[in-house]
């Protein structure tokens, strides 16, 4: 997990198909600009988000990870994001214990209509990762 050599910040974003991926599409439709550091992986639902995949992402050298899903109550599959909402604080706390700084791991709710919000979320994640890299 050495990131020292890399110049550019590298963020992996896991976006649920129904809300956040569509929201990110909406960001495009609205031509809202955001940093290109994020690489998006489409998943059906944040319920699919196996914590192992996030650990793998950090292991592979991701500087940051974002998981984004539907707002609570709006999950296409009713409950998936509720399960994710429990995995996230646990995993974040465990990752911190292993020394993965909390500025590197984020979660958000972005609905299919919140294109602008998605751009803001990405900006915030990238800024946080940058802050971690520069200020330790």
């Amino acid at each position, binding site marked *: 997990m050495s990131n020292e050599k890399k110049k550019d910040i590298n963020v992996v974003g896991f976006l649920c198909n129904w809300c956040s991926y569509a929201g990110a599409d909406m960001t495009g439709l609205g031509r809202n600009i955001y940093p290109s550091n994020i690489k998006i992986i489409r998943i059906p639902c944040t319920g699919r988000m196996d914590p192992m995949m996030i650990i793998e992402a950090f292991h592979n050298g991701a500087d940051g990870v974002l998981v984004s899903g539907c707002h609570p109550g709006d999950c296409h599959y009713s409950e998936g994001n509720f399960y994710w909402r429990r*995995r996230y604080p646990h995993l974040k706390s*465990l990752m911190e*214990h292993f020394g*993965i700084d909390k500025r590197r791991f984020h979660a958000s709710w972005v609905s299919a209509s919140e294109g602008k919000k998605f751009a803001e979320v990405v900006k915030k994640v990238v800024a946080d990762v940058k802050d971690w890299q520069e200020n330790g």
Partner: protein
Amino acid sequence: MDKELQELIKKLLTEKKAEWAIGYEKAYDEFSTRPAFIIDPADTARLIFNKYCINNLGLYLTKLKKNKLAVVCKGCDIATVFELIREKQFKRENVAIIGVACEGVLDKRTNKLLEKCENCQVKQPKGADFTLGNAKNSEKPKSYADVVEFEKKSSKEKLEFWNRQFEKCIRCYACRNVCPVCYCPDCFALRSMPEYLSKHVDADKNKLFHMIRMQHVFGRCTDCKACDTACPVNIPLSMLTKKLAKDAKELFNYESGADTDARPPLSTYDEGDSESDIM
């Protein structure tokens, strides 16, 4: 107590209440014990219980595919048995839990009480079918002071600390093999399609193994310290398992192995769960 224990197990085996009994016997020296697997009621004289009975015999329940088992448990080991029942690995009625009062066990390398035995709340076992002996539970609650202290370090310090630790790891998998809840038929660490973990041994990959293992046992690990004790290179795995117990308690008010009918924290949810950290 040994006599009582031997008689009880003899009775269980004779009356066919158990096909196998798992207990402790003396190993190669007076400071060592090992698991004893008894089928023959005549064979029970081997059984003992003393302060060197460090093993968590719950481990063998998932390995012995028998219908009726009797198992000797220290108070702390009962949590493991309960957790395994919750995980549907066997049915409650098929295991006779023989609780033995325990004043703490010693790490024979140092001849000191294990850290977990200080402030032990279950010296007198709870929830067993048979209980032998008497002991007084500690009045002080379990202490997380060392974890809290560690949490205060910066992420850089934590990272460096673990890197040093996992530098030592030889990936012998002893931690996994002694873990009672690491019973997966096909461990992720050995898979090749996909290869979740490279077979190559270096600090980075070792850390990946431990991170995933710890995540997999969250809400299931009873902090029994079997892995911590088993590690041949003294990686302080207790610092991780204790963190899991602390997080389960603080984030979800959950304690592994307390209730055989509970829903573990990650397989349930509450509509009012906190989401303060979610953008």
